[in-house]
């Protein structure tokens, strides 16, 4: 029986909802043509970021991916800064220069989404090295996908972290697809957790659709990292409910077909049932939460829309510290 407290359980539930609603709204805005660039939605994978980040302090760090909104929200970034960034406004987390794939916030320990698949993995190892050298007890959580686990950067980053016993937790969000390519076509292992063997570190398969599984397994791994025992590789089996990017029909290799089965175990639905069983929430709890979240979203979108675009000169700044 999981040892989660009511407080943590509610935080996770609320965080999953916050992610889901953020993604739904940004998809809606994107589809209306209000947002430039492209978006990769986290819908379906909310349990992963939420079940892990509940264990983190603002001083702990994360590295993220092109599918990073969920990680950001779970790490505490606010809607206003995020929507403003998607709208490419001056008030965005990156002043409109980064966009969806590069949101970062050093105050809250977000070392950045990343447009390069696997690019964040060695960076996470380095951040963990820095935190270790600074004699903190802080840890780094490194998110990446199944496809990323085939990049050389995955191998080099985890090898370095394991050789130096760095305080980092590697979280592979295995949603079974790399863009259109099914896992079996891009690697011959079915459990990416098995790759931990190459680094002599624990490799654990977690149920990425179950916040409790994520909570328990991540809790252990983070404790291990904080206590100086080194990295862990967690493989969260999950599924994105939508195509690779917003607009992708996801018809290649039958992604659209398999999704249906996963939607039946939507983490938000199943976890609400769990909370109700536990009598930790009332029947209308979710509705109330959603109302608050929606209001916060509406305000944030309004804020973003009304925020000024960057000035042309801004384009020339921030290339160097003195520019």
């Amino acid at each position, binding site marked *: 029986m999981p040892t989660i407290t009511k407080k943590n359980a509610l935080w996770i539930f609320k965080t999953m909802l916050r992610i889901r609603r953020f993604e739904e709204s940004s998809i809606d805005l994107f589809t209306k043509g209000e947002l430039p660039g492209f978006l990769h939605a986290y819908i379906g994978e909310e349990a992963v970021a939420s079940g892990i980040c509940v264990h983190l302090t603002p001083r702990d760090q994360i590295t993220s991916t092109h599918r990073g909104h969920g990680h950001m929200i779970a790490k505490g970034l606010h809607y206003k800064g995020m929507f403003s960034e998607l709208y490419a406004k001056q008030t965005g987390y990156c002043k409109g220069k*980064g966009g969806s794939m590069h949101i970062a916030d050093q105050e809250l320990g977000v070392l950045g989404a990343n447009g390069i698949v696997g690019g964040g993995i060695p960076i996470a190892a380095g951040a963990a090295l820095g935190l270790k050298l600074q004699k903190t007890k802080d840890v780094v959580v490194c998110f990446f996908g199944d496809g990323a686990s085939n990049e050389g950067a995955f191998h080099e980053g985890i090898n370095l972290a394991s050789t130096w016993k760095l305080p980092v937790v590697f979280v592979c969000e295995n949603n079974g697809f790399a863009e*259109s390519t099914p896992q079996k076509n891009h690697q011959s292992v079915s459990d990416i957790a098995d790759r931990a063997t190459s680094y002599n570190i624990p490799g654990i398969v977690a149920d990425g659709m179950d916040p409790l599984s994520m909570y328990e397994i991540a809790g252990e791994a983070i404790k291990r990292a904080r206590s100086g025992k080194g990295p862990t590789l967690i493989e969260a089996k999950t599924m994105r409910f939508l195509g690779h990017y917003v607009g992708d029909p996801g018809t290649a290799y039958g992604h659209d077909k398999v999704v249906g089965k996963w939607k039946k175990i939507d983490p938000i639905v199943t976890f609400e049932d769990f909370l109700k069983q536990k009598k930790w929430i009332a029947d209308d709890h979710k509705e109330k939460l959603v109302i608050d979240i929606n209001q916060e979203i509406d305000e944030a979108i309004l804020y973003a829309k009304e925020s000024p675009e960057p000035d042309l000169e801004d*384009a020339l700044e921030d290339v160097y510290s003195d520019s």
Partner: protein
Amino acid sequence: MREILYRDAIVEALDEEMKRDKSVFLLGEDIAEFGGSYKTTAGLFKKYGKERVRNTPISEQGIVGATLGAALVGMKPVAELMYIDFTAVAMDQIVNQVAKVRYMFGGKAKTSLVIRTQGGAGRSSAAQHAQSLESWFVHIPGLKVVMPSCSYDAKGLLKSSIRDPDPVLFIEHKLLYLEKNPAPKKEYLVPIGVAEVKREGTDITVVATSSMVKKSLDAAEELEEIGISVEVIDPKTLFPLDKETILTSVRKTNRLLITHEAVERCGWGAEIAAIASKEAFDYLDAPIERVAAKETPVPFSPKLENFIIPNKDDVIEGVKRTVLG
């Protein structure tokens, strides 16, 4: 002549060469059933099957290394790197292996291979998905670098690149994929190393690459109206370079402007400026202008992106500075 999308011209070239030569095959990320992120291999998986149209894992070093290995044993692989930004992930294989084996092995290596990729900004894809890095590769002896600006050249140059015995980096442009312009259905080749005068003029020579060719032709139209006659040259191949076509033009117009989407410093335009300033020294009536991207990473904001990437008006201003002084 039949009009065709630039991206379909790529598909057609691949299709024709695969039909013609069994040793030609394709590999890259999501190029099979999905048809490629920009649909430049659409339909080929159905037609040629999984052995010759191969989805790879996300591993650019693996892709380029595999491309070279297959070429060394006599195949003619055509690899796709989804974005030119990702050539950085495979840089060792491209530069230290692909470009050098022939020389290091004393000339005995088979290296008939093509690495297709696409660059350029204009879709708010931000700093890691919108670079123009062609000058890196022109700097490396052993590589040929091709950069088509229209459907006709895309098809004809890709076919020539596939038949070429040397490694070719073939750089497409993400904004050109959906541009439709003439290209015959019938078999034809466009030779590597030959530039084209896209428009004749007498007052200034504009050397433009990739997406800047169209912008420069549009600029030339407008400048015509105020009485400035612009000659527009598309080098098509950045290396080997058709120096003579450019120099002949400069010796005629006595003025030169080079424009590309890459940042100015150490961009390919610097090389052209250095060559022309030396070999047409006595012919130049004005300083050589470069119209390039501002020296920043590519910003996400469309407003800022549009500001840092050179456009038609930047070419017009540059020409005026040069011609009117």
